[in-house]
């Protein structure tokens, strides 16, 4: 648009930008006009019309963008709020059902005790306790695990890889080490483990029997008096002590007297069904994992 071949471009773009934010073109056009005079006739008129159309387009663009932003925002946050509501409702419903189930199970246990003679009832209670279906008391240990403090830089968001997190595998290892150290009953964050319990991860959450457990993770176990020593001697404990040193996780083991572990939720038999004629099962050795 300019025939000025010698126009010098400022080397420092930002300085130029701050000093003179107006398009160079306007000054050039003014200079050009000063030389040749105002354009006249249909040319000037058409340019003016195009300019007006451009302004129409600008107004249109502003409204469209505004509407778009307004339309996007509420639907996004509404969907989120709706999902959160649903999750909370279902969790409440689940808790209610769980409480109802626990109450009914207590009722069943009471009525059964009333019908059975003392010996049979005691045998049944023992077996229930061993299987994780009844509350148990006894001396044992408490293992506390927690994630390392965030290694992520608060400003840049950069951080080393998150190695200091407690994983589902860690809880599995602790549980297995406790079983092998002779524990008879184990709970993770007050969720009793049974022979069919699962400890797994879903995303970044850890689920024990499909119920989420949150940090800090407290694993309680009831077992023989040397449970703490055996556990401290295990490879798992050594591994965690190394992790405490390297990654900053927290891990502690302590002896606790008179622990009470809750009953596990009802086992869901999916494939097996109880045989109709109840045969007294011979008491086997301690049911392992």
């Amino acid at each position, binding site marked *: *648009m300019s025939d000025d071949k010698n126009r010098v471009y400022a080397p420092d773009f930002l300085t130029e*930008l*701050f000093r*003179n*934010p*107006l*398009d160079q*073109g*306007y*000054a050039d*056009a*003014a200079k050009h*006009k000063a030389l040749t005079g105002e354009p006249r006739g249909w040319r000037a008129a058409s*340019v*003016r019309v*195009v*300019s*007006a*159309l*451009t*302004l*129409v*387009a*600008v*107004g*249109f*663009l*502003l*409204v*469209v*963008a505004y*509407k*778009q*932003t307004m339309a996007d925002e509420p639907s996004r946050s509404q969907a989120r709020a709706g999902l959160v509501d649903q999750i909370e409702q279902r969790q409440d419903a689940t808790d209610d059902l769980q409480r109802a189930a626990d109450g009914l199970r207590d009722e069943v246990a009471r009525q059964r005790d009333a019908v059975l003679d003392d010996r049979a009832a005691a045998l049944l209670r023992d077996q229930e306790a061993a299987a994780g279906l009844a509350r148990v008391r006894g001396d044992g240990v408490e293992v506390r695990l927690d994630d390392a403090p965030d290694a992520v830089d608060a400003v840049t968001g950069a951080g080393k890889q998150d190695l200091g997190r407690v994983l589902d595998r860690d809880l599995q290892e602790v549980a297995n080490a406790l079983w092998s150290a002779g524990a008879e009953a184990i709970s993770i964050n007050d969720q009793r483990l049974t022979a069919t319990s699962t400890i797994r991860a879903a995303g970044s959450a850890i689920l024990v029997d499909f119920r989420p457990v949150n940090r800090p993770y407290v694993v309680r176990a009831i077992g023989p008096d040397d449970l703490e020593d055996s556990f401290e001697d295990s490879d798992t404990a050594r591994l965690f002590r190394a992790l405490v040193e390297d990654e900053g996780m927290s891990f502690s083991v302590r002896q606790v007297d008179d622990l009470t572990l809750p009953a596990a939720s009802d086992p869901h038999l999916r494939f097996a069904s109880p045989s109709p004629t109840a045969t007294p099962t011979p008491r086997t050795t301690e049911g392992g994992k």
Partner: protein
Amino acid sequence: MIAVLALAVGVVLGVLLDPTVPAALQPYLPIAVVAALDAVFGGVRARLDGIFDDKQFVISFISNVLVAALIVYLGDQLGVGGQLSTGVVVVLGVRIFGNVAAIRRRLFKA
């Protein structure tokens, strides 16, 4: 006067027609708006300076919007879309501020 009328017509058209933006164009809309604002404020300042030129205004609007969209598109393809958008917004924002400051000085002598 015509300019304000035209802008108002555009706004009314946008409200009445209520267009839906194709999903492919949605990421470029905010950047296009900032680019358009830059062109508009540049035009207003040029008018106050007495050097407004219709052709220059049309070209600056179209090229601003196209270049801004192109930069964002390229950035998206290269994986730096967010950063390039920020860059475009900063540069256009500086120009808008500078032009608005010049307009202010001219109107209020302050």
